[in-house]
């Protein structure tokens, strides 16, 4: 890296290059600010995508012992494969601890683009039923802004990213700016029609950040299937090939990869952040970079870790932590409830040939809504993701020719899996483990989280309602699951630096700006006040754009 990169003072230092960091870099550099974008991992190129490599060309066909050895936690993620495991962190180099009875799986990537390379791509708006949930049911507090405050930023993000989906006019899931939706299978249409009629519930095609028509110079999906291994046509949204590319193109953004941020540097006299200290990943040299503003986009747990590691005499419990709440209110959607079944009267046969639709259906939350009223056993609610299609029956009974035929005849399957709201609780938190450091000597996290009774009741209900809906649609062989998976499995960690209007009860203000340090922002999922039940990335991106536009205004007004 040329030394002069580190000699200048940037207007903004953005830490993290994933979904939110990419947006921060794009928005700020396009507004004319000089930006340094720091990424802890290496750069990524389209040449290393593997979506068109058949699994039999993998030495271990996706059962590599190297993943077992170096990624014992990461491999719990559905997207961590022999194809792409090097994108995921090496668990041996990146430890964290948990209390023995409170397991948590922290699944993450360190590479340009971060988790946007492998994310699930479902993109849903939150509504005022979510932002003002506390006012309705009395649990915890409302968000510091309302849906109309965020809606214009949802528009900006959706128009740029390209979300395929359908408008449904359901108050629990506000409609947005959509490209044409992907198509539903027969089984999915059957379920949609049946539950609309019998339960008044809405099933829609997944609203996903995958193009169904040319958009912003990117080609539509070619339906090969496994987006998490990359996409030669850039048809799903990932930051390196969109927002980060735009930011660098302005000439105002300097991208620095392999920069593992250790802490934020403070000017104690002025109570301002003045840059960050990072460790160069390969040489392990310590370096500093200066900026007028620091924008944390490293994802909730990592941004929080950096702030907790940035304590000063003035902020002994961690930077921006005069409230004592930094690290607390960790949330991750509860998953585990649902059901699966078969449509025995549907005769379509499975095939290994494409097209493989790279997404599924979404069943909109129907519990504790203004229309359905209060549920007796839990507050808040859940939505379902799932799909229905002919599948091969590899577990068919028998042997020989008949078994081969039974595999190919398969079955027409349908499955629904819930994503439920995780209630914000002070007792779910992360802190620095005094006895644990990563391979670069940076103190590591101790994460302590467990889902509670409300989440358990919700997953039980999800099993019950999924079974009811499948039965009412004529499905057979219904099997129900009502368990609660360990936190982290949804990979939707949010909430560790909550937003709010009261500096004693929150870490960030409504524009993701630290109450304590005015030129420090955290715009990833850390600021979430509640988790709602919708996939969070779209909201994180909208919040980032709102925060960055406000920051640009402050620059223009000379307030920085």
């Amino acid at each position, binding site marked *: 890296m040329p030394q002069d990169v580190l000699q200048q003072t940037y207007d903004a230092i953005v830490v993290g290059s994933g979904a939110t960091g990419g947006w921060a870099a794009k928005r700020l550099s396009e507004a004319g600010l000089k930006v340094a974008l720091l990424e802890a991992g290496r750069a990524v190129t389209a040449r290393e995508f593997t979506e*068109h*490599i058949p699994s039999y*060309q993998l030495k271990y066909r996706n059962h590599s012992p190297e993943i077992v050895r170096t990624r014992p936690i990461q491999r719990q993620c559905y997207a961590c494969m022999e194809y792409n495991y090097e994108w995921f962190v090496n668990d041996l180099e990146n430890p964290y601890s948990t209390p023995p009875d409170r397991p948590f799986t922290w699944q993450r990537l360190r590479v340009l683009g971060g988790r946007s390379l492998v994310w*699930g791509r479902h993109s849903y708006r939150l509504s005022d039923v979510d932002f003002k949930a506390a006012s309705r049911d009395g649990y915890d507090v409302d968000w510091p802004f309302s849906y109309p405050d965020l809606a214009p930023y949802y528009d900006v993000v959706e128009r740029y990213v390209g979300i395929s989906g359908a408008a449904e006019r359901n108050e629990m899931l506000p409609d947005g700016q959509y490209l044409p939706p992907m198509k539903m299978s027969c089984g999915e249409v059957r379920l949609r029609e049946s539950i609309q009629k019998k339960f008044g519930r809405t099933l829609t095609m997944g609203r996903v950040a995958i193009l169904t028509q040319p958009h912003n110079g990117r080609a539509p999906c070619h339906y090969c299937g496994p987006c998490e291994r990359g996409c030669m046509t850039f048809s799903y949204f990932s930051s390196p090939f969109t927002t980060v590319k735009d930011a660098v193109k302005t000439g105002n953004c300097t991208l620095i990869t392999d920069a593992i941020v250790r802490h934020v540097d403070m000017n104690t006299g002025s109570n301002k952040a003045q840059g960050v200290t990072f460790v160069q990943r390969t040489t392990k040299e310590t370096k500093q970079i200066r900026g007028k503003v620091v924008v944390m986009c490293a994802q909730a747990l990592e941004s929080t870790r950096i702030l907790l590691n940035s304590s000063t005499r003035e902020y002994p419990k961690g930077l921006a932590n005069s409230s004592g709440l930094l690290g607390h209110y960790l949330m991750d959607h509860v998953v585990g409830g649902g059901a699966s079944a078969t449509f025995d009267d549907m005769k379509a046969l499975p095939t290994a040939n494409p097209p493989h639709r790279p997404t599924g259906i979404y069943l909109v939350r129907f519990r504790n809504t203004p229309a359905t009223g209060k549920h007796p056993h839990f507050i808040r609610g859940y939505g379902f993701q799932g799909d229905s299609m002919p599948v*091969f029956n590899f577990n068919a009974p028998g042997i020989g020719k008949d078994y081969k035929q039974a595999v190919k005849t398969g079955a027409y399957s349908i499955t629904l899996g*819930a994503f439920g709201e995780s209630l914000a609780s002070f007792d779910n938190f992360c802190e620095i483990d005094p006895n644990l450091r990563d391979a670069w000597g940076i103190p590591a996290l101790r994460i302590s989280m467990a889902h509670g009774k409300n989440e358990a009741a919700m997953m039980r209900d999800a099993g019950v309602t999924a079974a009811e809906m499948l039965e009412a649609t004529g499905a057979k062989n219904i099997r129900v699951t009502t368990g609660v998976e360990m936190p982290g499995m949804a990979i939707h960690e949010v909430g560790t630096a909550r937003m709010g209007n009261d500096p004693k009860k929150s870490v960030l203000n409504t524009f993701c700006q630290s109450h304590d340090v005015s030129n420090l922002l955290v715009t990833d999922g850390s600021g979430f006040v509640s988790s709602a039940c919708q996939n969070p990335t779209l909201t994180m991106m909208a919040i980032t754009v709102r925060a960055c536009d406000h920051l640009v205004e402050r620059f223009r007004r000379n307030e920085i």
Partner: protein
Amino acid sequence: MRIFGHEAAHSSPRPSSSALFNRRDLIRTALFAGAASVFGPEFSLAQAVSSGLTAAAKGEDGSTLLTDPNWRAAFLNDHQNETLIVLSDVIIPGTDTPGAKEALVNRYLDLLLSVQPAEFQRKFVDALAYIDAESQKQFGKDFRGLGADDQIWLLTPWAFARQPSHWTARNDTRNEAADLGQQHFELLKALIATAYYESEIGQKELGWDGEFTHGPYEGCEHPTAAHT
């Protein structure tokens, strides 16, 4: 009935936690159950800083190992290897399409076993040995030496779900020895099926024509209530 979704066609971007497994789940469950915590006493900071490209990202074709003319087993002994070839061919024979033997299922499983924990290797070897022991008991010969009809005769009761006796249904009359045989057989069958259907021959058996695109997914085009 369990159903295993074809991995490439498994359209859910996020697997639900339902009991609908794909093959990856199957083999993961079989191989890695109870894996130790990463932060056990063996934990130490890695000195080398990794982060390169996977073999797949570098474009390396790992399948050529199996077709090497000088192939030698890395884990199985000759008898076990021969038994596995014969067993896999009974479970998934060549018909109008090639079977497990042509797909070199034994070679892939040998490679996979060679890097598994000892506990799992033992489970596999025990399962093969159990089938030989039953064969000895019934016929006085090892399984690989039986005629095709006798091989099928031996395996078939293990290949279907068992039910309580028609006559004394209220009592649990299941035969423990039969159940143990079934457990061993199901492990072997699941691994053989996985190895077969993940091979190129197996993918073609499932209809794959070698192309990665065939236009967009068209979905349901039926009028209401006429879905097939």
